[in-house]
Structure formats: C-alpha cells, structure tokens
C-alpha cells in the first residue's frame, strides 16, 4: 500500500506499460503463430486453412476445438530433419556459450581490475563494433575467411601454410562468427558483476591466508556467478535461434533450427509446420529461462 504514497497517479499506471508491451508484441503474435501451427497447409494466400473462424460464432469454435489437429507437431517428432536441427542448435549454442565464457570472463575480469579512469574506455571498445551493422560485420568475416581472403594471405605470407586453407562454409567459421558477434553480450554482464565486487573482500581473503589464486576461486568466481548466468543466457537463447551467422558462414551440410524455419516458411511455404517448429523452439527455451529466473531470485533473496 506504500506504493500509493511513493508514486503519483500517472506513475502507477505507467507500471502497466511493460505488460501492455508484452501482450501486444509477444502474446498476441504468439497466439497467431500457435493458431497457424494448428492449421493445415493449403495452396492459397495465405498458404494455410484457418482452424478458427471467429465469424461463425461459438458453435463453430467449439467444433474446431473438437477436431484440433496436432499433425504438425507429430511431424516435427517423426521427421529427423527437425530433431537433428534442434539438436544441432543446442550443441552449437552450448559450445558457443562455453567458448564465450572462456574468452569473455578473462576480458571482463581484466576490465574490472583496470584503473578506474581506463574502465569507461575499455567499455567503449567492447561496444564500438555495435556501431557497424551486424550484417556488414558478418560479410566482412566472409571477406576475411574466403579463399583469397586476409587470413589466408597472412598465413601464406608467414609460411604457416603452403596452400590456402578452406575456412568459409565450415563450422569453425560459424563458431568464429558467433563468438565474435556475441562477445559483448557475455562481457558486459560479467563486467557489471565483477566491477561491483567489494575489493575489501579480496583483502579479507588475503588477510585470512588465501593466495591470490585461492581468493579468486573461493570469492571472485562464486560471487560472479549471477553475471555468468546472465551472460550465458543472454548468449545461449539468441544463439539457439540464430539464422544469419550459420547461413552465411557455416556449410550447407546441417542446419540449425532457425535455418529450418526459414526453409519451411519461405522455400516450402509450409507455414503450419514452420509455426509448429517455432512454438516447439519456444517451449524448448522456457526451461532454461525459468531456471535462470529461479537462480536470480535466490541470489536476490540471499538464499532464504
């Protein structure tokens, strides 16, 4: 009830804004996608037979419910194409997130230990790539990695290789692109946690007999876990649905779920199956999100 006193009337209504946003731009579109996922393909415009026709009243809706079809979802399970692209998405996302952590943590740690006046500059350097369009940066990588690209030229000039190496259209190129693109999303939350850490905690650890290495593993690392969680999730979730990077840098051998979705929507024009795949992806993403939320709440409440 104290909110009545703290916030003026308009401010109280402003609290609705995020919910309104969620309903308008997430829940309603998701409803559309869900609806499409339960319909049947048709050669038409749009290319599916609507399940619900709201113009025919309640009885029609009830009838529709009675004969709802989960055929599209069954197809997802039965066709190995979908299962393998889901699996590949998870593998790529997990691997990338681990690599990102291994690279991002030392960088964030180093940034947090820089002298106070250098930290904003380091922060700028992390963010600077965002000033160039993401797509352009990926195309730049294509340029660097191609047969007669910069990387091969350097390797040849240094006599490290005798003939150009195939970089483009490999998983290596894809991981390179993903790690490069998502690194700031890993560094920033880690830096935020690490820079907030009270330096007197490390002094206390040292005073109580910890070597710097012990102090890192006993204090710095456990206390930075919320940042690790935030960074990992911030990378893992968008990487799972990533389309552009695997499409441009990886080979055509196997697809991630984002590519499969694109294929179903635009090449096969099978909207219902594509919608079902999208819904399944969301369901796949909910458990890690809930887990993170629980962990976050536990750290906020101090383990009560």
């Amino acid at each position, binding site marked *: 009830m104290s909110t009545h006193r703290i916030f003026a009337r308009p401010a109280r209504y402003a609290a609705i804004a995020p919910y309104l946003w969620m309903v308008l731009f997430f829940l309603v579109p998701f409803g559309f996608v869900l609806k499409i996922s339960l319909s049947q393909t048709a050669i038409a415009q749009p290319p599916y037979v609507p399940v619900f026709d709201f113009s025919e009243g309640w009885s029609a809706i009830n009838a529709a419910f009675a004969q709802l079809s989960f055929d599209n979802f069954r197809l997802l399970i039965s066709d190995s194409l979908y299962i393998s692209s889901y699996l590949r998405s998870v593998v790529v996302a997990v691997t990338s997130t681990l690599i990102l952590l291994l690279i991002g943590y030392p960088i964030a740690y180093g940034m947090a230990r820089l002298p106070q006046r250098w930290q904003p500059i380091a922060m700028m350097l992390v963010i600077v790539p965002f000033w160039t369009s993401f797509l352009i940066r990926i195309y730049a990588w294509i340029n660097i990695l191609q047969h007669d690209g910069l990387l091969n030229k350097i390797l040849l000039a240094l006599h490290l290789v005798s003939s150009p190496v195939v970089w483009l259209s490999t998983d290596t190129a894809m991981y390179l692109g993903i790690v490069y693109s998502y690194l700031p999303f890993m560094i920033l939350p880690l830096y935020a946690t690490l820079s907030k850490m009270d330096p007197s905690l490390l002094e206390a650890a040292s005073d109580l*007999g910890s070597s710097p290495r012990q102090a890192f593993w006993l204090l710095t690392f456990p206390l930075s876990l919320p940042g690790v969680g935030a960074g990992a999730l911030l990378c893992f979730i968008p990487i799972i649905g990533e389309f552009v990077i695997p499409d441009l840098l990886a080979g055509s051998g196997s697809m991630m779920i984002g590519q499969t979705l694109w294929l179903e929507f635009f090449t096969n024009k099978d909207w219902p199956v594509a919608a079902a795949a999208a819904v399944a992806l969301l369901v796949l993403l909910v458990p890690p999100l809930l887990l993170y939320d629980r962990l976050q709440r536990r750290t906020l409440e101090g383990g009560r």
Partner: protein
Amino acid sequence: MSGQSPEIDTAKINTAVAQATAPANDTPLLRVESVSKKFGDFRAVDRLSLDINAGEFFALLGPSGCGKTTLLRMLAGFETPDEGRILLGGRDIAPVLPHERPVNMMFQNYALFPHLSVRDNIAFGLKRAGMARAAIDTRVGEMVALVKLDGLEKRRPDQLSGGQKQRVALARSLARRPKVLLLDEPLAALDKKLRESTQLELMELQRRLGMTFIVVTHDQEEAMTMANRIGVMDAGRLEQVATPRDLYEAPASRWIAQFVGDVNLFDGEVASREHHHLTIATRDGGSIVVAEPRDLVGNTVVSVGIRPEKVKVSRRGPASDAGTSQAINRLEGVVTDVSYLGGSTVYKLKLDSGAVVRSSIANTARLDIDTLSAGQRVVAWFTPDDCVVLEK
C-alpha cells in the same frame, strides 16, 4: 612523551600509567621504524616511528585523512612502506605477504563473505591454514561462543543485524589467533548504545585472550575508553603517544589539546617565573598563574589551556586563597549561555575582555537551588594546577 607532563599531576598520572600499560618488555612486539608511505606527492604516513608492546590495547586516533588507516594497512600488508621498516617480534615483515603474516584485520565494513554462512566465514582462515576438520569445528565453536553468536552459525551475512555482523567479523579475525589484531574503525557502523556495550566487550575480550589489539578510530571517547595507550596522528605524523589520561591532562601541543576534548585557550607571553610557577600575561584573561616545571627559556609565546570541567563558576568566587595555599586565577564575566546536558551543565561566559570561557559543572545533586542563569555576573576560577602550558 609522558616526560612532558607537568610535575604537579605526575604522581596521579604515574599510577594511571602503571595501571594502564602492559607489563614492560625489553623488545616491543611491534616496532615501526621511521616508516613513510607516499601516494603521488602526498605523504600519507611521514617518517613515523612507534613501539607497541605485547598485550597492549593501542588506539590510533586522528581526524580522517591523517594516515591512521594507511599505517594500519601497512601493518596488515596491504600497503608497502616506501621508507622505513616494520618489525614484528624483531623480524622485518616487509617481504611477508599479507596472507602469510601472523596479523589479522577486522575491516571497517566487516568485509564478510556474502555467499558463506557465519560458520564458513569464521572457518575461512582456519581452512586456509590447513587445520584438521575436527579442530576447525572446535575452534569455530569457541569463537561462536566467545562473541555470543550461538544459533546463528548457518545464517548468511545478509540475514544478520549490524551488531551480529560486527561479531562475525571479530570472530573471523580472531579465529587464527593472530599475534596482533588490527581493527579498522570496528564500531563505526553501530549505533551509540551498542557501540558502548561493544567497547566494553572488546576490552574484556582483549584482556581475556591476552592478544595485542591495534584499533584505528576517529572517535576519541572510544579510544579513551578502550586503549591502554593512544597515538594521536595528524598529517601522517604521530603528534603524541600517551595514556588516555596523559593525553587529556598533559597534551603535548595546542592542536592535541583542541583535538582531544574541549579546552579554553588563552594566548600570551611568559611574564615571570618562580618556584615552578609561571605567570603568563594573556591577551584575553589577564595574568594567569600556571604550575609548570619546565623552564621555557627562549619560548615566551605560549598558550594556557584549561579544560572546561576545571573551571568553577560562582556568583562571588572562593572566599580566600588560604584553602589551597596557591594563587587562584579569577576571571570575571557574564553568563551568556547555559546548556543542561544531564550529567553536567555547560556555562558559556563572556569575559570583560570579550573572550568566551566554557565551564562544565557536574550536576552532583538532583535539586539545584543555586543555578546560574544567563545574564548573571559571575566569577570563573581555577587553580594553577588545572592549567597546561602549550607551546605550539
């Protein structure tokens, strides 16, 4: 330093010193030898020397920025001296890293590990020392009992009150049984009542453990309550090292007299000298007779300091000087302000010269029939023994 105290009170002061200081020891436990610490061009600690004996409760007192925390951090090993040596038990500890020093520190903000329970916080230093599990459990149990934290072992720091956190920090720093315990403003975060009771507990604890405590504080009352000896620091230097009583009754300088407690100061010049008594011609208080054993040759510009509680105030002043066989200094003026503080009442008098004198009179009786009120003309008086001559 105590040699500078006037002869008059030495009997009393010496008894106090004998009671207060730890048994004399040939080599001090901790010796600081002309240590300096510079931050850029700023000398945080400036060629400072200090001896601390085993079993002492020593307080470093000073205004903020005087270098007392820097000195403490050098003792803990978090800062390295730019010049000088620090000897612990006769051994130079400059090359000894903080985690290898037999010294522990209690931090001002407690620096409790937020992700560990009370028990694990206290056990932290013991585990690093490679103590056996059973021994750790026993020691933690002792510590928990010592600081009266029973039943809270499983709590995490954010589930504790300020006073409980303070106890955990204390237990954690005591658990390794250091030779010297450093306490950085240990009570600053507690409220007044809790601070007072904790002061007494700290003293009791120090006496029981026989450990050497060095406490940094800006609170002079805290320093005076707890410490055997106090080192007063200003601008990176030790201004005076003395027992609480010496510090108050025989301050080494004008600055110390003003920093420790309240004082009335009269600037003047030495006019004459006889039988350990000086007559000082002051600008605002006329001639003041002062008991002073030192021969202040060549230093005639001095200040006379009198603590407010040594200034008596009455309508007429003492009947005669016969009772004390000493000349009594009298100042006449008008009461301008009366502040009743419970235990005492502070009177502000405006002398005829325009100077203000403060007098603090203990309220020894519940009913006071002879109160002075503003506007009354009164006599303020004090004996030569009550005055201190300050040179700087």
